[in-house]
């Protein structure tokens, strides 16, 4: 008989049950680590230490290994995202068509570096490794919505709308 039991849910937040569901579906197998972290991120928006610890203990993955995985994949974020997220595609086609200038303009307007969130938690500025809409380069994702052939002015306009909210 196995003496190993799953750790208790970190809180009574219903989202932990969704997380647990993913692990149960995979029979609490170690290889479900990435799948489960995806569930945590889609449920909570990011991965914090409590979440990683809970998932690692449930799947019996060493803590350092789980942390190693969570920080290896750039899709996972260890910090909460802003209310809005603007993602500039930094794929080759977008780069050839001036994505680097868009990024610089966004950094200047928001006063943050790519990968950061404004201090009021309003906007996160991210870059993506090609969203696959290369024919519409340069491409911007505003809260996941794809806009192509983006000009600097159009982007700033969108950022203005968010920052005055």
């Amino acid at each position, binding site marked *: 008989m196995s003496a190993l039991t799953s750790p208790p849910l970190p809180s009574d937040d219903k989202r932990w049950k969704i997380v647990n569901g993913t692990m149960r579906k995979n029979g609490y197998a170690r290889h479900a680590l990435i799948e489960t972290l995806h569930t945590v991120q889609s449920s909570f928006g990011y991965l914090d230490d409590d979440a*990683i610890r809970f998932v690692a203990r449930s799947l019996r993955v*060493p*803590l*350092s290994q*789980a*942390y*190693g995985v969570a*920080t290896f994949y750039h899709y996972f974020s260890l910090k909460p995202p802003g209310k809005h997220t603007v993602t500039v595609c930094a794929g080759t086609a977008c780069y050839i068509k001036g994505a680097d200038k868009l990024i610089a303009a966004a950094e200047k307007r928001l006063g943050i570096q790519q990968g950061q969130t404004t201090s009021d938690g309003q906007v996160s500025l991210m870059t993506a490794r090609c969203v696959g809409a290369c024919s519409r380069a340069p491409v911007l994702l505003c809260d996941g919505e794809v806009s192509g052939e983006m000009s600097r002015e159009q982007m700033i306009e969108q950022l203005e709308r968010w920052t005055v909210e």
Partner: protein
Amino acid sequence: MSNGDDVKTLIIDDQEVSARRGQTILEVARENGINIPTLCHLEGLSSVGACRLCLVEIKGSNKLLPACIATVFESMEVSTDTERLRKHRRTILELLFAERNHICSVCVSNGHCELQTLAQEQGLTHIRLPYRNPNLPVDASHERFTVDHNRCILCTRCVRVCAEIEGAHVWDVMGRGINCMVITDLHEEWGSSTCTRCGKCVQVCPTGALFDKGKIGSEHPKYPDFLPYLNLMREAR
């Protein structure tokens, strides 16, 4: 009993040698007194083929193979010390010295460091590449040991000895690429981690990244060769 197929004959650096099937080029070379430089490899731990210092040339192939992993085959001809290999080895060592802040003169492992010794063996007198000067932490929270990330070369011996031999898996690598770092638990302080305080990681660390607080300066030789004996004893049980 071994049949004829299990014994291979091959040539390493113009020397005819024999080997058992499944042996790595490195094992056979060392058995025959042929030195191939290594850093991430350590007898008693699994091989990862990451440092690329043990790359060797095989006649008939343009690809370089890691001697710590590549196994022998009948009639293979191995060269371990060509100009091409020496050039790559020097560049790899330069990359390591420029990557973090290896200031040998003020290192606890000065004089007992595998990286330093290899640099001398490979004839390195200076680093042509620009130093990267990253700002890295030193974690002295553990009561017995310290980790100085400035001197870590990410060979992952500590990770492997902790997971494979001690069975604790307290160490692992976080991040990726040039931002990789060895961590304990959830990137927590070593002192408050689930470390068993066995100290094996310190003994296998090839540089001054992991060291014993009780020792200073030149009194800090390490003894990583306990591993093969430990494994032998465990197998015998």
